[in-house]
């Protein structure tokens, strides 16, 4: 065994020791799970039933979706959300209409329909489930938008 081989072996052993000791400490937000045990299956919560408009936590927050959107498709052919929330349909359906800001492209040019960058609703607007936050958070909305 020459010198470089010994060095490589030593490095490999050191790496092995480091990895095996580190393995107990690695924790993700989903919790840790060892390789020889099944991870605990999280309880899949149901969507909240239909409700009224939800309060926002900060002024620029995209409004939340107060209903389930299971099976709603948004692709290049169709957008299920717009069948109620578009300017053409909102009066008939009684839904909130999309904001006029959604008609501008990134150069602020106003288009005659929803701008492609604003087409995929669920990029910003999401429905809610009643779950425990993964990390502690003490954020509070400013007084002006706090619910009384």
């Amino acid at each position, binding site marked *: 065994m020459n010198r470089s081989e010994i060095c490589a072996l030593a490095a490999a052993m050191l790496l092995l020791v480091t990895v095996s000791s580190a393995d107990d400490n690695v924790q993700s937000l989903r919790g840790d799970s060892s390789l020889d045990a099944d991870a605990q299956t999280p309880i899949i919560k149901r969507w909240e039933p*239909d409700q009224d408009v939800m309060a926002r936590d900060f002024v620029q927050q995209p409004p939340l979706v107060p*209903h389930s959107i*299971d*099976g709603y*498709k948004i692709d290049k*052919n169709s957008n299920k959300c717009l069948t109620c929330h*578009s300017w053409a349909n909102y009066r008939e359906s*009684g839904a909130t209409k999309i904001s006029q800001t959604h008609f501008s492209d990134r150069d602020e040019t106003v288009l005659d329909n929803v701008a492609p960058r604003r087409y995929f609703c669920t990029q910003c607007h999401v429905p809610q489930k009643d779950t425990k936050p993964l990390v502690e958070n003490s954020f509070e909305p400013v007084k002006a938008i706090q619910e009384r």
Partner: protein
Amino acid sequence: MSDKNSTGSSRSLWQLLRSPSGKYSLGALTVTGFVVGILFWGGFNWAMELTNTETFCISCHEMQVNVYEEYRDTVHYNNRTGVRAVCSDCHVPKEWHYKMLRKIVATNELFHHFLGTVDTPEKFEAKRLELAQHVWKTMKETNSRECRNCHDYDSMDYVDQQRRAVKAHIKGFDKGETCIDCHKGIAHSLPAMYTEDVSAVTGNEH
């Protein structure tokens, strides 16, 4: 010569059918006729039901790669209670005479399968609007009969429905609308432009 022979034999067959049986008893003939009738009708019905299975429908790749794949993402394929509506539940009537008529019309689909009218996803996409309009038109004309095989208005409990559904159902039924008027694209992808301009798709002013 052969012509003369064939007319001769067909005439004698006709005579045989017209003349009373001198050999077999009326009972034997009745029982035989009865049994053969059951076998024939059973076989006919069995073959007809075979063409109503999902396996049969997706044996054509046009169905398998397009509409079937889309449907697998929807609630009619996979759901909480495990009740599945297969192709024929929505696209073939349950009543006998409507079913027979639909089966006869379906020969046109066979014809276009062999012509290769929609044999690539691109061709299918180009035809999607037209094909969808055919189905929507039929469903509108039959007051969504195939939907109502399972979804009966009289059995709907508004208390159990979500708020949006209650509102939309009461409004729709009051206006005399039928299922398909609102529930388009629930089992398959919608054609392009549906939400941009509804009138372009449904063919009526909106």
